[in-house]
């Protein structure tokens, strides 16, 4: 078919399995299902405790809510009213993550800003509740606040400073996986759990399908962790266990340029469009909360986008006129408790030991938030260790997450000065918007191949800033495709389908915010890819 060898073949040769005897069974101690921040966090946590893990993901890293969020490390102040317990958790985790994964974090600091017309009572209660939860804060004079953040609205009435930070969830997952792999763990992307066999109250093996080669293989593990986030209910049902989930979609917008230095929160009861988080060189504005029936095929709608902007511009007026490059959505996995507003559902996580459901070696972790991912991984790992009869302290609290080369390219703009310093090597810039050179693409290709993945446009874009700039892949897609062909990573017509998939993936994020500059950009994209290359025609 399209690819010379499937991932699993590649793996088996490495493991010196003899193909003619092969039952295609891989053994390990723990199988983790779901490659989001929680899954990768657990993989690292357990690896650090000396367990052998395999992480499978039906798409690629952070395909779900882990990739569809603000990238905000909450100070906790947002939850002081709705969920004081989560607020304290956030506050504690913030300090740990800052310490152990500092290279994924930007200590931006944050403001809580109220504008005229906002709920006075909420504003008045804020300091007291912060004190109760032990969250550090500082009242800032409105005029000073505008000095510090000139983009803020003129009609601010109250500003509090908290120690929010922004985090790059992609880098976080990549580094967690890389660290787990370095300790003997394995990561299979595009591998989907199809079913489990249960014998004697235990899952004895899991049936897995490689989504690219469609090959079926088995993984035999001692314990199984369901860290599939919004898909947790679906995975649990494969083991015959019902988990009732509700799905709350949140959409976010990415501006073309960073607008504020700090995280800007609206000082009011959490609702739509009230957080603006700087994400490296851009700012991310969100979110919404829309109940959806399924976590699959979600995308931001025009209505959501308009709602977010009209709320956001109250805090930061330039959000009305600035250029947006992309919108995206994530689904909050919430374990149903029958509430009406999904924001009232606790953002605390749900950790279920399925012993009570008759499966002794199966744990589900879902819910929660990015800020507490490490805690979630720790608690889950604690249970797993208990199942394995191991007494081991969690070490992710103290051992710093190492930084690897392949993880660095998910970070915007950090390498710019380096790649241009002496220009002796042949290293053209393939993505001009985000200045990603060919050598970076090569690094990423190699790391994907090392993880037994398949380097295509989408997986390269996942691990770098490629396609994330204002042109949204109009130019870089073709350049990287050329590069992939030139380096023999692609053969035949596969690249054209790749290109289509990639452009469509980008388009999902563009279609809801096509006005002003973005519509000009996308028209140009259409001129190139449809007008000239005729990619919309099915004849190639």
């Amino acid at each position, binding site marked *: 078919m399209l690819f010379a060898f499937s991932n699993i073949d590649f793996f088996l040769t490495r493991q010196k399995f003899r193909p003619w005897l092969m039952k295609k069974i891989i053994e390990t101690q723990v199988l983790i299902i779901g490659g989001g921040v929680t899954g990768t966090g657990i993989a690292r946590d357990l690896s650090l405790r000396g367990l052998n893990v395999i992480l499978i993901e039906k798409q690629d890293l952070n395909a779900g809510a882990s990739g569809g969020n603000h990238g905000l490390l909450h100070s906790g102040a947002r939850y002081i009213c709705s969920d004081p317990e989560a607020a304290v958790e956030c506050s504690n985790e913030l300090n740990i993550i800052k310490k152990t994964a500092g290279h994924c974090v930007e200590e931006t600091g944050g403001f809580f800003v109220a504008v005229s017309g906002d709920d006075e009572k909420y504003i008045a209660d804020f300091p007291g509740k912060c004190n109760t939860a032990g969250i550090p804060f500082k009242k800032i004079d409105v005029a000073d606040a505008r000095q510090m953040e000139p983009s803020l609205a003129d009609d601010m009435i109250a500003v509090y400073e908290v120690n929010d930070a922004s985090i790059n969830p992609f880098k976080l997952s990549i580094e967690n996986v890389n660290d787990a792999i370095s300790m003997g763990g394995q990561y299979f992307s595009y591998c989907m759990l199809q079913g489990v066999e249960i014998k004697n109250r235990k899952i004895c093996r899991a049936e897995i399908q490689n989504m690219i080669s469609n090959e079926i293989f088995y993984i035999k593990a001692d314990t199984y962790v369901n860290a599939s986030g919004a898909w947790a209910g679906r995975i649990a049902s494969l083991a015959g266990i019902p988990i009732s989930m509700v799905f709350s979609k949140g959409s976010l917008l990415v501006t073309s340029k960073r607008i504020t230095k700090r995280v800007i929160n609206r000082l009011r009861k959490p609702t739509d469009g009230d957080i603006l988080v700087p994400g490296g060189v851009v700012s991310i504005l969100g979110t919404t909360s829309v109940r959806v029936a399924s976590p699959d095929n979600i*995308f931001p*709608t*025009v*209505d959501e986008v*308009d709602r977010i*902007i009209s709320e956001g511009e109250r805090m930061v007026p330039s959000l009305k006129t600035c250029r947006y490059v992309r919108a995206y959505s994530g689904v909050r996995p919430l374990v149903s408790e029958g509430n009406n507003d999904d924001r009232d559902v606790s953002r605390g996580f749900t950790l279920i030991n399925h012993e009570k459901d008759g499966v002794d070696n199966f744990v589900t972790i879902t819910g929660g938030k990015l800020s507490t991912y490490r805690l979630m991984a720790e608690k889950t790992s604690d249970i797993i260790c208990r199942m394995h009869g191991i007494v081991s302290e969690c070490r992710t609290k103290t051992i710093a997450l190492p930084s690897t080369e392949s993880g660095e390219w998910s970070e915007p703009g950090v390498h710019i000065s380096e790649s241009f310093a002496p*220009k*002796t*090597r*042949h*290293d*053209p*810039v*393939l993505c001009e918007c985000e200045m990603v050179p060919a050598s970076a693409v090569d690094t990423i290709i190699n790391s994907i191949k090392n993880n037994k993945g398949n380097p295509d446009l989408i997986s390269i874009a996942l691990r770098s800033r490629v396609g994330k700039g204002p042109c949204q892949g109009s*130019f870089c897609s*073709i*350049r990287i*495709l*050329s*590069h992939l*062909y*030139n380096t*023999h990573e*692609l*053969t*035949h*017509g596969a*690249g*054209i389908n790749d*290109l*289509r998939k990639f*452009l*469509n993936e*980008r*388009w*999902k994020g563009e*279609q*809801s915010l*096509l*006005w*002003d500059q973005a*519509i*000009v950009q996308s*028209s*140009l994209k*259409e*001129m*190139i*890819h*449809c*007008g*000239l*290359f*005729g*990619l*919309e*025609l*099915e*004849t*190639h």
Partner: protein
Amino acid sequence: MKDKQAINCDLLIIGAGFAGMVAAARASSLGLKTVQVGNSSNLFLVSGLFDLLGVYPMASGHILHDPRTGFETLTADCPHHPYSKTGYKKVLESFDFLKNFLASAGLDYQSKNNENYFVLTAAGTFKPSFMVPKTFLKGCSIKQGPPKRVLFVDFKGLREFSAKQIANVIQDTCSIASTLTIEIPDVSSTLHPTRLANLFEDIQFLNFLSKKIMPFSKETDLVGLPAVCGLNKSLETIEKLEAMTGLDCFEIPGMPPSLPGLRLKNAFEKQLSQNNVIFLNNSKIQSHEFKNHHFILTAATENLMAEITTRGVILASGRFPGGGLHAKRERITETVFNLPVRQPEKRNQWYHLNFFNTGI
């Protein structure tokens, strides 16, 4: 202060893209005193191909070999479509006019009048087009003629063009698709199309290139090059290269900035100025009024202001990239005269969820 200049003319053309340029060509050759405003550098973004109904009906994605068949269906389906109103014959006449106009500016185009060409693109796809630069012609025979042995040449540092990609994607269409990557000394990293086009103007470079191509001459019928062969005299350059190598050569259009587009820009600008068209480059219409059967418009650039009195105006300001239309979050507006724009009521109907959706 800006100098204010008064210009009287028969026709003002707003826009300097394809449509504006062709309109100016036509009007000036009819003897109208013509003024043109706009920014001609948008032509850098066009591929250099002139299409006429390559696909119809749109939703079917059906590629038309003979545009006339689609034309008939279109006329029946939408009698108000500009094509339907113009009529096939008139369209062909216009193409002939354009062909002759460009030829007089030294840019050679060709059309078959009853058949679309299938032009090989840099992505490796084939695109139906009606009138193509002569330098592209031989590439069209890959899809339409008997299988050929083709050598694709690319240049290290020209990022948007991969010979291997084209060879891989179309390998079933050719009998042999081989590739050659030329490394140009003194190019450390990136080779920009215009720089390469400049090199092609140099006979030394063509010599260098032909020496690299020669070893392939025995197993090759055709040589495909990126569309960067010379700034203006591309056909001459290709012919020189053919004479040196003894092989048929052709250009493959690709990503902007496009040299075929630049050639068009240069050809139009040269010929239109010979036809006494006043071209106020980079100018924008600032105000307009209609008085005594005349339009009075003010066009301004950074250091020039012109008051243009004209009997007629052709609005050829283009869509979103050209700036003729502007989209706000709420609605789409026309930028010069604020003409009403027919549009879906809400933005979520402007575009389909699938980028490649061909349905309407």
